[in-house]
């Protein structure tokens, strides 16, 4: 017992980090790698032939067995109803032939069941067999006789093709498609406009508010508590609240905007593209400016007062103090706040999803909203993942740029 404890103690650091590493591995790193893999495949859940990741070719054995059974069944029916002896003879030969094909198929693929992985050459052989069967069926129905199940037979026979699942590896095709997808370009530009305007407004307002809060003598605790509220409430709840204030028939903000002439009718606020995007930005500024102000305020409060006192003895005025003391010392806090805000704004999802749903007519979709719709409404996971991957690369570049500018270690040792 004590030996185990001693071992634990000697390697305590590793014992302590293992749970975190396992969680990060399982729920961050592996999904990210898996998503990256999706991006190179034409992976679509709603398409039977593409609903998995197939690096190699596959053959759907159960479906094949079922199809052969049906073909035989319809041939039997036709044999019972046709008029001429020639036709009956042809059908009987055909039934034997098809049984032979099926055995042939099984000997190629071995005794495996389920969806069987196989080589491209085997798939070509199977395709040739399928062609022969198709030809035999077409020949049968071109004979001069009375048939009752031609439509059913053709429908069943076409299933033979469905049994073949070819590799859906498509290399960089998803990325090529993204570059020429106008909706990607559009949603990306909406995301950038949203990010730029909202973060810019939040920074300016947050900085101003932080400076004022820093001067405020009374009620600092109250101001802080109030400032936390918009940050703390769920984004989806905030979005719903604003959608009520913005709505065209009873929203007070929509009515107020229309009364002061910002928009024509109250209904225009959420039903025209520009106004709707403006509304989203406004809701975001409302929710995040106080958070920004709190972060900057915390940075302000660690600037030693002595710096201001000695500089004012040297005859510096308030503006000079702001430029030469406050701003340089505040730079790290501002940059960290900016970094996190930019990343948050760039991946904006909840706010738009609940407030406008991307509407009107898809005009306020961010890249996240579009990617989500591609993945979960159209179930095109391959294409959606490629889009998200490009987003992640953009996020990486933004972070890298900020950290370079910051030029400080985010965490001190």
């Amino acid at each position, binding site marked *: 017992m004590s030996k185990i404890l001693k071992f*634990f103690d000697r390697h*305590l*650091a590793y*014992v*302590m980090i293992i*749970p*975190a590493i396992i*969680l*990060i591995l399982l*729920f*961050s*790193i592996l*999904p990210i790698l*898996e*998503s990256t893999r*999706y991006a190179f495949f034409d992976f679509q859940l709603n398409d039977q032939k593409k609903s998995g990741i197939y690096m190699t070719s596959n053959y759907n054995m159960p479906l094949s067995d079922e199809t052969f059974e049906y073909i035989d069944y319809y041939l039997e029916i036709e044999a019972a109803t046709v008029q001429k002896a020639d036709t009956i003879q042809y059908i009987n030969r055909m039934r034997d032939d098809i049984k032979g094909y099926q055995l042939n198929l099984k000997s190629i693929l071995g005794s495996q069941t389920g969806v069987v992985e196989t080589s491209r050459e085997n798939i070509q052989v199977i395709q040739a067999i399928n062609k022969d069967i198709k030809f035999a069926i077409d020949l049968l129905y071109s004979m001069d006789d009375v048939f009752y199940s031609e439509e059913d037979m053709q429908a069943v026979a076409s299933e033979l093709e469905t049994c073949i699942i070819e590799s859906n590896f498509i290399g960089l095709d998803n990325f090529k498609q993204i570059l020429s997808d106008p909706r990607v370009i559009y949603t990306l530009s909406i995301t950038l406009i949203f990010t730029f305007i909202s973060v810019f407004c939040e920074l300016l307002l947050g900085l101003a508010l932080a400076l*004022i809060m820093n001067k*405020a003598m009374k009620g600092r*605790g109250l*101001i802080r*508590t*109030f400032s936390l*509220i918009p940050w*703390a*409430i*769920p*984004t*989806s*709840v*905030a979005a*719903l*609240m604003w959608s*009520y204030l913005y*709505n065209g*028939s*009873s929203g007070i903000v929509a009515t107020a905007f229309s009364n002061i002439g910002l928009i024509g009718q109250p209904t225009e606020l959420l039903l025209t593209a520009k106004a709707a995007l403006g509304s989203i930005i406004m809701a975001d500024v*409302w929710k995040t400016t*106080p958070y920004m102000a709190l972060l900057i305020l*915390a*940075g302000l409060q*660690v600037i030693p007062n002595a710096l201001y006192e000695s500089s004012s003895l040297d005859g510096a005025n308030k503006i000079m103090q702001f430029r030469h003391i406050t701003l340089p010392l505040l730079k*790290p806090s501002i940059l960290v706040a900016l970094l996190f805000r930019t990343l948050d704004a*760039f991946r904006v*999802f*909840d706010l738009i*999803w*609940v407030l406008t749903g991307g509407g009107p007519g898809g005009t306020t979709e961010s890249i*996240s909203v579009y990617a*989500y719709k591609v*993945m979960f409404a159209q179930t095109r*996971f391959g294409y*959606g*993942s490629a889009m*998200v991957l490009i*987003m*992640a690369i953009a*996020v990486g570049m933004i*972070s890298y740029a900020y950290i370079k500018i910051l030029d400080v270690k*985010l*965490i001190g040792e």
Partner: protein
Amino acid sequence: MVNKRAERLFAIIIVLYLLIIVFPFIWVGITSFKPESEIWGTEALNVFSSNSTMEHYLALFKANILNSLKNSLIISSITTLYVTFVASCCAYAIARLKFIGKNLLLAVVLATSMFPQMIVVGPIYNIFVKLGWTNSYFITLPYSMITLPVAIFILVTHFAKVPKEMEESASIDGASKMRTFIKIILPLALPGIFTAAIITFIGVWNEFLLSLTLNSDSNYHTATVAISFLRGQFQIFWGQVTAATMVVTIPTLIIVILFQKQIISGLTSGAVKE
């Protein structure tokens, strides 16, 4: 006096700022007590209603909102408990112990906190479907992805603040490293652990994307998702929407008022170098 005037201006700005923050809540609160007939049309903008009613709140009891609040509470609590524990261990090792690959671990933690969540949603959804874990409380596991990095950062800064002498004197007394951690460091870092727990709790409580995707059955909706579904496609009952908004907001308000100090210290611990 210029100063007096500036002070007055600042006071006005602060009051205006506070008003803008609370206005949406007040207006939504007012609406939640109006009968449906007064929410639309000419009376929509009246502040007071002569026929105040509790009908929207009563209707919520029939709807799934209460159940979704229960789900949110369970999921947030479970996640908070295990994430705080895992993060405490990891953060202590980072702050105080020596091990190979510390910088790599820090870089990975930082990077995962920056990645868009959208990138993990697809694979996690597919795995959950395969394992039959959708519409269950297993959703707490992937929530580590959003909460763990933040909790680790908050805790690293707190463990780093505990004076090193405490550990040194304990090790002279012959205490094992594990004992030192449990008996000496943990109690001293308790405020930091509490801060990390609150930030984690709020993070999970507010999460939307994973919840929307993994728990799509309305019996397993969390509050944030359930409330978003009140906004139907064709008809919106603003009375119920506003009442639900109030109900969902109140727990958050209580947490903010009670734990204001811890939340602010948690939010700023990464941003300010002390």
